[in-house]
């Protein structure tokens, strides 16, 4: 009798895995790849201006003084349009935002800023995504909190919504 019960073990195992697979199918899948650079020093870089209205961006522009936001964006990125007013709201609160435009043309950057507002003090042009790869960013838009020592303290993936503003302000405060 005991050995008979034993025969059901493989079936029970199979049912368990089938159930697990079915359960996991109903769960949300995150497509986000988080940067492993949080807590690490911002890598060295120096990017030329993305258009002639603002200076370019280098690591030294993000170090010292107050914590800053480093915003990875592009004029061809649709969520970046949705994010633009939220960045302006952060700027209105006194936050300095340095932009990096990924694979972008100067005239497109200028057009985007004329249409959707300019919250940046500087924008560097990253034509081959080298700085994006160096800081572990895997898409646009993404926003990083950089403290005065040049350490990456926080990463926000995706467009900033209204509800994200208090979180980012708190992270900037923590980085002080």
């Amino acid at each position, binding site marked *: 009798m005991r050995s008979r019960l034993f025969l059901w073990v493989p079936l029970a195992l199979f049912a368990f895995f089938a159930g697990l697979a079915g359960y996991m199918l109903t769960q949300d899948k995150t497509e986000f790849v988080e940067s492993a*650079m949080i807590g690490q020093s911002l890598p060295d870089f120096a990017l030329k201006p993305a258009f002639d209205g603002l200076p370019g961006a280098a690591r030294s522009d993000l170090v010292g003084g107050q914590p800053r936001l480093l915003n990875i964006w592009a004029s061809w990125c649709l969520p970046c349009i949705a994010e633009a007013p939220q960045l302006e709201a952060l700027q209105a609160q006194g936050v300095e935002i340095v932009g990096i435009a990924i694979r972008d043309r100067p005239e497109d950057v200028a057009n985007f800023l004329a249409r959707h507002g300019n919250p940046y003090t500087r924008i560097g042009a990253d034509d081959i995504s080298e700085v994006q*790869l160096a800081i572990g960013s895997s898409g646009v838009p993404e926003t990083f909190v950089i403290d005065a020592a040049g350490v990456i303290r926080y990463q926000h993936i995706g467009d900033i919504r209204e509800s994200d503003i208090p979180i980012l302000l708190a992270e900037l405060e923590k980085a002080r």
Partner: protein
Amino acid sequence: MIRVLLAFLAALIALPLSAQDTMPPAPYAYNQLDDPALEAKATALMHTLRCLKCQSQSIADSDAPMAGDMRHQVRSRILAGESPAQIRAWLVARYGDYVSYTPTVSASTWPLFAIPALLILIVAAVLLRRLGRRRADAGDAS
């Protein structure tokens, strides 16, 4: 009639669903290295690195602009004398193990390697005992 035809033609034009950049690809995104030995090294590595925008493809398989930029990093770093292991480590330091298709033994993956070995040991032990018993039975019978 012409309007209908025009409407049909308009329907045939494929417009991209989401915007993509129009910039030219990075120099080494689609250009091979001149030295075939270095290019072979770079290609072998690119087949084992995950594209971050299209996560079920390697960067060698993907036409996403970001995959091209990653290929540029791989080829230019190989050209600069870095080893494939160094480049993989550079990317893993930025994106975690996720970016690499080569499995590594770590705190969370060791059971994947340990369980099959353990199962083989258990099966071997059971088999030896059974075979040993049968041989003993056969010895009794003769």
